[in-house]
């Protein structure tokens, strides 16, 4: 197994430019498989996410997808392009949930390069992305920043 053959060739630390915005190719429709399964898996006890009977008469008309699921999917949709060559995810900040998501909604993701810095180790650098999640009507449902430690091609490109 050669490590560098298993991940992308165009998303090392050197490849990201400040201000660059990436539109990620895939979207994902959120249903019970994502919302109810992950909400229950992580023991989030708020039944607004898993009791359809209680939520039928709410302004949302049904179960609300849990915000942590919504932005994990938006960040997941961004992961191959932004974090496939990451050694670690280190931090998040300014996570904002701006619009409700219900079953049947589809999330698309965009990422903007906010900051690039040297790291303590020489074989990788720090990149801060602002990720955006938009729904099928192009409404912004989430935005938030994530900092990852990303391999440098100079050290990892041939390994």
């Amino acid at each position, binding site marked *: 197994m050669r490590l560098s053959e298993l991940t992308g060739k165009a998303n090392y630390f050197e490849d990201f430019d400040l201000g660059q915005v990436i539109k990620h190719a895939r979207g994902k429709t959120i249903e019970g498989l994502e919302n109810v399964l992950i909400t229950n898996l992580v023991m989030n*006890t708020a039944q607004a996410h898993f009791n359809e009977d209680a939520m039928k008469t709410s302004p949302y008309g049904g179960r609300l997808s849990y915000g*942590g699921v919504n932005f994990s999917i938006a960040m997941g949709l961004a992961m*191959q392009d932004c974090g*496939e060559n990451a050694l670690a995810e280190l*931090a*998040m900040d300014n996570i904002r*949930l701006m619009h409700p998501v219900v079953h049947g909604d589809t999330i698309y993701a965009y990422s903007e390069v906010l900051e690039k810095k040297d790291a303590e180790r020489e074989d990788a650098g720090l990149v801060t992305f602002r990720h955006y999640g938009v729904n099928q009507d192009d409404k912004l449902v989430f935005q938030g920043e994530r900092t990852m430690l990303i391999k440098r091609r100079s050290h990892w490109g041939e390994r």
Partner: protein
Amino acid sequence: MSEDFRERAKLWPKGRLYEDFTLGEVRIHHWGRTITESDTLLFTTLTLSYNPLYSNRAFAEAHGHPDLVVNPLLVFNTVLGLSVEDNSEIGGPFVGVGKLTWWRPVYPGETLVARSTTTAMRLSASNPRNGIVTWRTEGFNQRDERVIDFERSNLVRLRNPTPQEASA
């Protein structure tokens, strides 16, 4: 005594509302959660979180890890999940998260526990039937090592709004 169990039943309610919080209060959350390999693989694949550290054990080992790395967003969601009944189960929508740090990786088989401190409380200007409460939530592994901490804010309903607040 009524025959019908429903008439004899008393609700054991869950969750807390705005008046139930006090600034500086620390709560150790219930249960704890051992993260299994299937948890992190399921979460990683369902969220399309494609980095082989989360899906390929040999790749993770070649990077110095003893096992697959548990997806950091699963660590976050689990620590937040354990805090929900004490903080936000019935209050209102989740507004945001900030100042989050992952301090160390988590590996399959490790156990997470969580605690929160109430760090800010204010009434909502736009909707005075609600307050906004902020907590500092911290997650630890079975060796009491800190694995994550973050701030979270939620809209939290007032239990007893004044008539003025209720009509706003």
